[in-house]
């Protein structure tokens, strides 16, 4: 089974990865050109300058004059206490900024994940092993995978919101405002997962055990749902890292297209405005989410596939 030992090891690795990501963004962002004090003073893009007096104050306040190693130490110390520092621009604690924006993003990503997975499931189970349906739907899925989602989003928005007025054009209110973003974010996931799932189903259906199941008098549906599906889910779980990456990354684009508030918007604005603490914060949150969900899914894989349980790592 999934042992305590395994969990401990994974927790250790998780902390390592999070520390690594934190360090990576710290180093990366301190390599940047430009005086952070000026960026803070300039409010991210004013063409007018700032007085020395103000700059000195900012340097003092944020400790920019200290050696990098001291700043790094303080950064890690804060991090250990769950403090991501002050945003350079938003006049807020980074944790506040992120916590405030987490809700809409989670709703978006979670819904899209469920939708993407559900659609893929229906497509794969419905068409695996049926050559006609398969050729038709796998072409469709290929299209989903190959079309940039921001473009799909724009087209959907134009048709369904601007022209037909079925869905709100912008904003975060209600489920109606989520329909198009969900769909847009889900399509590439559906495409990939359906292709992978169908492949897995097919492989499973070609295995000797599939014939055995039929030889026991089971129906084709039973074979698909009770036996083959689990096998098809394994590669999907293996792809969870990819899916998660696509989701978190997609959120950035989708929130821009649909003018939704959320972490993605925060990230883009922070990068454009060089709001380093916020960028670091978003990266760390993404990393933590990634580590936690990936670990959970790995554990799930071990539950679904008993063959892995004896294997370390």
């Amino acid at each position, binding site marked *: 089974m999934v042992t305590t030992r395994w969990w401990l090891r994974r927790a250790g690795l998780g902390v390592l990865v999070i520390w690594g990501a934190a360090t990576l963004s710290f180093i990366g962002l301190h390599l940047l050109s430009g005086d952070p004090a000026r960026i803070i*003073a300039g409010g991210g893009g*004013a063409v*007018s300058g700032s007085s020395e*007096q103000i700059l000195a104050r900012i340097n003092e306040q944020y400790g920019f004059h200290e050696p990098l190693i001291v700043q790094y130490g303080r950064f890690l110390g804060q991090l250990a206490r769950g403090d991501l520092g002050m945003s350079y621009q938003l*006049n807020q604690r980074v944790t506040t900024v992120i916590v405030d924006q987490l809700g809409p993003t989670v709703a978006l990503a979670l819904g899209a994940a469920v939708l993407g997975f559900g659609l893929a499931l229906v497509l794969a189970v419905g068409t695996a092993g049926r050559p006609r349906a398969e050729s038709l739907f796998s072409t469709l899925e290929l299209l989903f995978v190959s079309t940039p989602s921001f473009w799909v989003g724009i087209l959907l928005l134009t048709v369904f919101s601007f022209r037909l007025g079925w869905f709100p054009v912008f904003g975060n209110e209600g489920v109606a405002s989520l329909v198009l973003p969900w769909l847009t974010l889900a399509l590439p996931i559906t495409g990939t997962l359906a292709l992978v799932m169908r492949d897995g189903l097919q492989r499973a259906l070609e295995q000797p055990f599939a014939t055995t199941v039929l030889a026991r008098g089971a129906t084709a549906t039973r074979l698909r749902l009770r036996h083959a599906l689990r096998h098809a889910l394994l590669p999907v779980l293996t792809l969870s890292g990819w899916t998660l990456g696509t989701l978190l990354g997609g959120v950035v684009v989708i929130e821009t*297209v649909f003018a939704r508030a959320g972490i993605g918007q925060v990230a883009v*604005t922070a990068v454009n405005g*060089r709001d380093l603490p916020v960028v670091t914060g978003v990266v760390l949150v993404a990393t933590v989410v990634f580590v936690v969900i990936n670990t959970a899914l790995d554990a799930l894989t071990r539950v679904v596939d008993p063959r892995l349980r004896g294997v370390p790592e």
Partner: protein
Amino acid sequence: SGPSGGSASGDPVSGGEVTYLVDQTQLTLDPAVSPATVTGLVTRPIFDSLVVQAGPTRFEPWLASRWDVSPDGREYTFALRSGVRFTDGTPFDAAAVKATLDHVVDPASKSQYAASLIAPYQGSTVVDDLTVKVSLSRPFRPFLQALSTPYLGIQSPRALAVPPAEYKPVGTGPFAFVSWEQQKDITLTRNPDYTSPPANAPHTGAAYLQTLRFNYVPEDATRYGALTSGQVQAIAAVPPNRVGSLQSDRRFSVLKTELPGVNYNLFLNAKTGPTSDPLVRQALQAAIDVPALVGSIYAGQYAAARNVLSPTTPDHDQAAAAALQAYDPAKAGALLDQAGWTGRNAEGYRTKDGQELTLTWPYLALINRDQRDVLGQAIQAEARKAGIRIDRPNLDAGAYSESVLNGTYNILDSSNARADADILRFMFASGSTFAKGGANVSLSDSPQLDGWLDEAATTSDAAVAARDYALAQADVLKSGYLLPGYVPTSLVGTTSALQGVTFDPQGIAQLYGAWLVP
């Protein structure tokens, strides 16, 4: 002030909620800190000012019922309206005025713009509860205009006492702040006890609208779609291409006003690189047919600028346009030849001593709006015809501000709204460089220009100021410190149901008198 929208009329009705989509966002709601235009729009309903600008040079009472200026022009004594309260219950008095002005100039508040508006401010004295005396270090003619802007709106001392992270805007205005979600929306609600409208207000008492919501939607198409699909009642920055179809649709109307201040211009670095040669700068003016480009990109809705200042700015000089090189490709070629850029390389760009004529124009996506990127592309294409390569590296805020600081650009674009020609000093005075907190990105360094601008700011004689400003306007055009772009124009789209929206002299929409046709 602009026209009131819509054709439907009738008596104003109370109540209702208006969602107004804006194309910009701000980092703080403190108007004393945030320089953004949108901050003006959003905080105008919250804050009353001491005075109201009723005409180009005319000021009327608002929170100040009266004021006196000392003969040397360095002391202003304001008599304040009585019985006014901030929406947090704090009484409005001389201490509040002092607190607000001190807050603006306090380095701790990191104010850039508001502080620059009252640069000579020395301090305030509370004479009595309802009298306050403000001292300036030198005579400062634009002082009252500055006081009339929302950026110097009078704030509740109680609200200013909290740490910046917890700041909430509290004023005496017709609306009170309810909530703000960064990068998303701001909600205001009617102040039922409002008693202090400006002297020129269309009505008195509380505002009509119950709730005002400002949503940040940067995408032009989305804002437009939200209006036409009926999701919202007003949008800022209607895409110029769409103005025609909105106007022809009875369900909508478009309110339009040209903003005062510095036009959207391309400022040319007169210190370094090829643009340090005045001939090259003038050639650039001659090489690009700005009116044609602006006309086409903005569908005739924005006027092409022929001057540094917009026509609605006090002391704008119509005649200065003559100092500008008119579009004349042949002349541009001749000027460049004269400047020594006589060679041509394989790509058709001019060269001098093997060096290609390349001008760097940093691009910062963060501040892009009004399709300035598209105008930029058109300008690039036009410049290419003249053999000038314009390079537009896509920079982030850090690299951009570094580039501005170090002067490693040849062109920088910006506009700057202000209903006073004193803005020229901010843009062109030799001491007003970026490093010193100014915006002189042309890096102009002319004692003569400095002289005119200083005199205009300190004189109490309006005629002297007007003459000085006219000289300055002609000079900056002639020296090729800039290539004028377009006149920033506020295009507000509303549903026909939204009535009574007006513009103040700065081009800021006023929502105090707005109401919804039921």
